[in-house]
């Protein structure tokens, strides 16, 4: 009897999951006769087994549910009330089954009220008129839905409750997880025990291999090899046995979406794809909460109410698409909604208010980067906390949960259009391949998934490690990576810096889209390791993910790359984007000409060449102190100079970079001109001082890109407002002084009159007072962004056709789309001087000669 009961319980839970899903499906698509028949069968089986096992409460409940389902089957439809009632019954049944599992007997209780309702509902269906009256449209089936209801043989053409179905969701119902013949049911406990034993076996095998490598006797090597192969096979098989289709997790989604949409007064179709993707059952439990939260979030904050959607020209039904797929040792789960997207401006506001970063840094961050702040603790952009998603389980917890299993979460969003969250989780947690390395007397393991490559720290005589602005960085090809100094974390004696042994290698590690390097002494091995958690007094150490026993019996700590990155200040809210790497790619194509020079210190410096008017070689005696500043007398004129280097007596002449801003020159005294090169303006490490925008690698050397505005402000504080008289008048809107000052001279030099504004507000007041022939605006500004500015400008009379060009550091596809939506004429990369001038030239000539040509020339400009 015991065994029968436990079989029944396991089966019943499975069947109830199916019933739950199928009844929601049937509600949407009553034409699916198979669906209702299958529900009926499942409940009928439950009833039969309950009767056999003398479970009277269950038997009565299932009997009443069966009656109602029978009627629904005969009529080919079910009203929302009936569906809700069935779902309610399923809850009661599940409750009883839960008790049954715990105590072996049905709990006492009275179901007569529910049974009464079920019976009443069943009677109601006998009377078509009554049924019609009680039927109201379901949240997911609106009258205004575009397609006609694919209704089948419903005898009476009545309620709109039999509305259109999410056709895409259909394959889901056709998925019948019926048990295949030849399968048996094994309790999880046994599987777990086998898994543990296999883990120990793997360790023992590793130990044996280690011993045999030292032994001189070769006789054991052949059987050991066999043992090794068999162990690996066994490990794979048991892993396979633990794998479960993610459908187990997805099965509960339709009901959840149904109930939430009703609760929230919204309409949404759920599409589930890839539900047969398999992953470790342990992981399924770990991703359940994050997944549920993200879907709740989609429905609550993403999908708009129907009237709002219609007003925006979207279908009244929102779409929530959940896709699972296996992707090179990882499972990726995408949760996509076509709702309102994330308002980046508000995220910015909030990030600043919460003090997550300083204003300057925030201002320089792209929208995608800013979006990642929503994973920061205590961050919720919803102005109104709703009971659905505002329940303290925030995005930070989603991130934490996913990270705790070695996964990542990222998002992409288009404001007003869609949001896609991507979860990436490993296939299994139990045994992972790891790289073993040593630092001083310590050995560590790091999951191999996160290792990109290991590179020697020395390239011939040249060290790839260098110190810039007080941080150790590693130069790798075109990149400058921050370095996690494990020897400091391990408190190794810094004096003991025996160059021969220390920091010989750098392990380049990737978390999300961010790379960093760990300086290590030696690589020891690659091993399959069994991850064991750290005990509670050590659990707070985020830089470690756990420990493991190696083949030689020693215990080593497993590095947690995410925690280690956080310990060196890689902002964890910035790490989780798949999109950032893509946008970097598109951005990289835009090359800028730089002048490379040296001026004191080790590090090479650079300025965009476009900012310079010429380079002079001047005698040091021509520079004089006057009125608190340095002035250079040269060729009969004087200009203020900034000494980037303190000239010593060694040389008589020094190079001076002459910068012409607004026609008034200033000079920068440097020690040596290196070269000019074409390079992407890609800042790997943001600057810490006002004079430095950031650092990157040029010509294989760490290079600081200087902020010219910093020097200009000290040398020529009054030159920013200069006016030029030219034919076309342009307005540049950018909250960053650097870009205004960088762009203004470029455009002025091309023959245009230029005005600048530091915010959308300033811009609008200027636009109302003056007539501009074109507006260039940064898209990414605090308060009011460029898109909103463009919309406001379009509303001003006489500005309907004025070219409005979006400026963005990354002129990515999403920016182009959003700009088009906002009525902007085109998008251009901020550093693409040539394209900027040519787009201005072509669009303004078009303004003069043929307005209709604007659009076409602009779209050509996009490609530039």
């Amino acid at each position, binding site marked *: 009897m015991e065994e029968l009961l436990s079989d029944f319980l396991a089966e019943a839970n499975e069947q109830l999951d199916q019933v739950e899903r199928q009844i929601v499906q049937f509600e949407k698509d009553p034409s699916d006769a198979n669906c209702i028949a299958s529900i009926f069968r499942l409940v009928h089986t439950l009833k039969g087994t309950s009767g056999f096992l003398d479970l009277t409460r269950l038997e009565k409940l299932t009997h009443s549910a069966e009656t109602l389902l029978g009627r629904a089957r005969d009529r080919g439809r079910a009203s929302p009330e009936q569906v809700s009632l069935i779902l309610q019954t399923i809850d009661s049944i599940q409750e009883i089954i839960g008790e049954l599992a715990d105590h072996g007997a049905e709990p006492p209780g009275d179901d007569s009220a529910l049974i009464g309702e079920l019976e009443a509902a069943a009677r109601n269906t006998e009377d078509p008129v009554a049924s019609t009256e009680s039927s109201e449209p379901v949240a997911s089936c609106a009258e205004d839905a575009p397609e006609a209801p694919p209704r089948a043989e419903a005898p009476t053409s009545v309620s709109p409750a039999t509305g259109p179905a999410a056709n895409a969701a259909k394959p889901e119902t056709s998925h019948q997880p019926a048990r295949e013949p030849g399968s048996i049911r094994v309790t999880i406990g046994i599987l777990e025990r086998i898994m543990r034993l296999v883990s*120990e076996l793997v*360790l*023992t095998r590793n130990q044996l291999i280690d011993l045999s490598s030292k032994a001189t006797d070769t006789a054991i090597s052949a059987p050991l090899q066999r043992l090794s192969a068999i162990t690996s096979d066994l490990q794979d098989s048991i892993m396979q046995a633990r794998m479960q289709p993610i459908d187990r997790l997805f099965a509960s989604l339709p009901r959840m979406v149904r109930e939430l949409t009703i609760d929230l007064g919204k309409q949404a179709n759920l599409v589930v794809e890839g539900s047969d993707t398999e992953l470790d059952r342990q992981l399924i439990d770990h991703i359940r909460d994050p997944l549920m939260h993200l879907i709740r979030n989609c429905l609550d904050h993403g999908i708009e109410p129907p009237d709002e959607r219609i007003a925006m020209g979207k279908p009244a039904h929102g779409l929530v698409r959940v896709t699972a797929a296996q992707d090179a040792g990882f499972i990726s789960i995408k949760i996509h909604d076509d709702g309102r997207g994330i308002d980046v401006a508000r995220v910015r506001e909030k990030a600043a208010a919460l003090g997550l970063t300083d204003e300057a840094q925030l201002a320089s961050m792209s929208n995608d980067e800013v979006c990642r702040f929503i994973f920061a603790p205590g961050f919720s952009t919803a102005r109104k906390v709703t009971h659905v998603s505002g329940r303290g389980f925030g995005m930070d917890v989603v991130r934490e949960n996913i990270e705790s299993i070695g996964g990542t979460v990222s998002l992409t969003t288009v404001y007003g259009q869609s949001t896609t969250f991507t979860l990436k989780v490993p296939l299994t947690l139990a045994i992972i391949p790891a790289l073993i390395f*040593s630092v*001083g*007397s*310590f*050995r560590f393991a790091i999951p191999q998934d996160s290792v990109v490559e290991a590179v020697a720290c020395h390239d011939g005589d040249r060290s790839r490690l260098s110190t810039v602005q007080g941080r150790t960085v590693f130069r790798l090809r075109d990149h400058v990576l921050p370095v996690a100094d494990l020897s400091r*974390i*391990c*408190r190794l004696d810094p004096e003991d810096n025996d160059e021969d*042994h220390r920091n010989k290698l750098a392990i380049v590690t990737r978390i999300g889209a961010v790379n960093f390097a760990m300086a290590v002494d*030696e690589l*020891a091995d690659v091993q399959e390791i069994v991850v*064991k958690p*750290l*005990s*509670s*007094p*050590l659990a*707070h*150490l985020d*830089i*470690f993910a756990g*420990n493991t*026993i190696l083949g*030689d*019996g*020693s*215990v*080593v*700590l497993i590095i947690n790359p995410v925690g280690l990155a956080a310990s060196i200040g890689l902002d964890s809210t910035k790490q989780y984007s798949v999109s950032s790497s893509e946008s970097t790619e598109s951005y990289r194509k835009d090359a800028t000409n730089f002048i490379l020079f040296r001026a004191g210190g080790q590090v090479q410096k650079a300025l965009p060449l476009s900012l310079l008017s010429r380079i002079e070689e001047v005698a040091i005696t021509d520079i004089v102190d006057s009125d608190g500043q340095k002035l250079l007398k040269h060729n009969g004129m004087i200009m203020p100079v900034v000494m980037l280097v303190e000239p010593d007596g060694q040389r008589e002449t020094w190079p001076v970079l002459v910068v012409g801003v607004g026609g008034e020159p200033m000079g920068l005294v440097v020690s040596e001109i290196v070269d000019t090169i074409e390079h992407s303006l890609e800042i790997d490490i943001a600057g810490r001082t006002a004079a430095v925008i950031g650092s990157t690698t040029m010509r294989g050397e760490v290079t600081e890109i200087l902020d010219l505005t910093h020097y200009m402000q000290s040398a020529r504080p009054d030159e920013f407002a200069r006016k030029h008289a030219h034919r076309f008048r342009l307005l540049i809107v950018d909250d960053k002084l650097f870009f205004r000052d960088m762009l203004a001279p470029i455009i002025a030099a091309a023959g245009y009159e230029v005005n600048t504004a530091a915010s959308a507000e300033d811009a609008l007041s200027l636009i109302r007072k003056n007539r501009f022939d074109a507006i260039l605006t940064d898209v990414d500004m605090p308060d009011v962004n460029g898109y909103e500015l463009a919309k406001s400008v379009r509303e001003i009379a006489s500005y309907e056709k004025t070219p409005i060009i979006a400026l963005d550091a990354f002129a990515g596809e999403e920016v182009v789309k959003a700009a088009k939506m906002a009525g902007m004429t085109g998008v251009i990369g901020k550093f693409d001087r040539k394209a900027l001038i040519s787009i201005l030239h072509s669009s303004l000539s078009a303004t003069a000669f043929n307005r209709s040509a604007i659009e076409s020339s602009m779209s050509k400009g996009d490609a530039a």
Partner: protein
Amino acid sequence: MTAAGRQQVESADAFTIRKPPMRPLPARQVFTIEIAGNWFGIPIDKVRTVFRANSITPVPMAPKAVAGLVNVRGQVLTAIYLATYLGLKQKSQNGTFLLVGVEHRDENFGFIIDAAGNILDIDETDRVLIPGSQSEYRHILPLPTYQVGDMLLPLLDIDTVLSSLRTAIAAPERS
């Protein structure tokens, strides 16, 4: 690979404490341990093994009283310097450590001790009250003390020891 990097663990002379048969307890049973010349009792029901380890894998940034991790027959124990917890100065261990393995809330710990004693019965009536509330050890409350034969034996509560580690998680200063 530096020689010190090998964290060999030897568990050959580990032995398991045989638990006495359960009987209606007139007294509690404690296992006695010596740390820096002081004897303490720990509840026998928590004790699993006494073993020697040749080396312990240190854990960077761990609380001061955590010595590191030890492998005992395929299980990883967190080794604790009880002396550090008690504010005592432990004898030098000559590179090999004597530990008493305890299980606490499904986790395994090893307390580093100088010597293992034996199993003693203690009775609540043997409890001696020492006037005054000052502990001889810096930061912990006075331990309940029992008269066993002619010895006064303070009783360590494992829960208190371990939870103090969890709360005092400041990283140790560089020394």
